[in-house]
């Protein structure tokens, strides 16, 4: 595979869905211009999908092409179109942009100021497709030595010690089944429910979602004994296990 000059990958991008309810070119362009002026950065070169599934009247090819041309002139990039599969126009093959399969996504109404009923003819909807990625935990079986750094996107489980001068970080919880002598930072992406568990607490620093505690303070609570560290409001609690 390495000698290939390209790789094929799947990708998910946020696109703007122009969901047309009533086909009126001037109306659409007029209201769209208004929207673009509110947030010009968002719409600059934004990929757009034109959806005509909800239009009741039939649209002619020249009308449709004029719409695409007008959208491109507004600095939008039309990447495809959608139509009700039961009512596909007979010119469907002559359009240069790809026909996309019908949407299953739930539409989010991005309308802000427009309240009058006639403006509802044109609704710009933004579809954000999110991938739910569950991060599995990382298990380390060997000691983490001074100068080493280990990061887990989920939980981090260390079955050995974490030496002084080493650093362990996790988006989730941190478990150390050995002495924790280095620095441990749980919930680094802001998860306030993350906790740190260890068999012997001798850490230089413990932190949960950015709230930290140094060894001086730790020595006054639990030291060289099994403990868990959790966040209570803005304070770290060190509790025996």
């Amino acid at each position, binding site marked *: 595979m390495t000698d290939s000059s390209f790789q094929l990958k799947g990708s998910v991008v946020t696109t703007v869905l122009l969901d047309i309810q009533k086909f009126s070119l001037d109306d659409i362009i007029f209201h769209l211009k208004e929207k673009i002026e509110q947030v010009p950065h968002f719409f600059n070169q934004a990929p757009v999908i034109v959806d005509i599934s909800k239009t009741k009247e039939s649209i002619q090819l020249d009308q449709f092409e004029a719409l695409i041309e007008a959208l491109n002139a507004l600095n939008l990039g039309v990447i495809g179109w959608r139509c009700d599969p039961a009512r596909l126009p007979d010119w469907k093959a002559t359009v240069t942009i790809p026909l996309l399969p019908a949407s299953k996504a739930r539409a989010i109404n991005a309308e802000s100021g427009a309240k009058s009923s006639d403006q509802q003819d044109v609704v710009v909807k933004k579809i954000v497709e999110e991938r739910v990625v569950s991060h599995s935990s990382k298990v380390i079986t*060997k*000691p*983490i*030595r*001074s*100068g*080493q750094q280990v990061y887990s996107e989920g939980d981090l489980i260390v079955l*050995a*010690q974490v*030496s*002084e*001068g*080493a650093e362990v970080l996790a988006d989730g919880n941190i478990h150390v089944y*050995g*002495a924790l*002598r280095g620095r441990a930072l749980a919930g680094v992406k802001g998860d306030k429910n993350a906790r740190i568990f260890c068999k012997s607490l001798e850490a230089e620093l413990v932190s949960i979602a950015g709230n930290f505690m140094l060894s001086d303070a730790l020595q006054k609570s639990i030291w060289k004994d099994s403990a868990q560290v959790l966040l209570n409001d803005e304070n770290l609690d060190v509790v025996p296990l």
Partner: protein
Amino acid sequence: MAKIIVVTSGKGGVGKTTSSAAIGTGIALKGHKTVIIDFDVGLRNLDLVMGCERRVVYDFVNVINKEATLSQALIKDKRTKDLFILPASQTRDKDALTIEGVQQVLEDLAKEFDYIICDSPAGIEKGAQMALYFADVAIVVTNPEVSSVRDSDRILGILQSKSKRAEEGKEPIEEHLLLTRYHPERVAQGEMLSVSDVEDILAIPLLGVIPESEAVLKASNQGTPVILDEEADAGFAYTDAVDRLMGEERPLRFLEVQKKGFMKRLLGG
């Protein structure tokens, strides 16, 4: 298949070269054909400790650069059969070592020798990384004090991440702890870390404890490996360490505060 042993520590002055000389000699005394390579290019200490500094003509860097053959550069030890030394160059720096060059030399040596001891320079830079890269076994030399222990911990991390075995995902390097310059009196007074403190922090098996001894300095100055000193406890401790390295069981000695008459008792049998 030759076994490549690196003697390393991170920190300087803890006894790497002394230990390389002693352990190399100890292994050769057991009848295994052994070579000790000085990786400390630019400083060159091993030949002094081994007492062969006047016989150095070609060195490790000459061999890497193909300016000399291995047999020209290898120095045969006069005292111990089966022991050879490959000295370092004093007029070069550590950049003269290349991975390919070192690999070639080690491969050539492996055809003839049973054990290849790599005496690492101090630090964690190129020279030290080159010395440990091809190792099968690592002897981590540590003094019972916090900075030395911390540096040893750092070098253990490098052994696990930057060695050839680690990069190729093979079985990790076999690690051994050698505690040198141990002073039982000062440990008893709480001035030094104890054996168990160091073992607890580094969490690797203990190969041996070498007591602080005047014999070590004397041996270095005379150019005789301390293991050959038949009166020094440091010499006995190294012999024990070599036995353990070869898989034999030996109880730890010289950990207690010495009572008066200890030497007498030892010599008198």
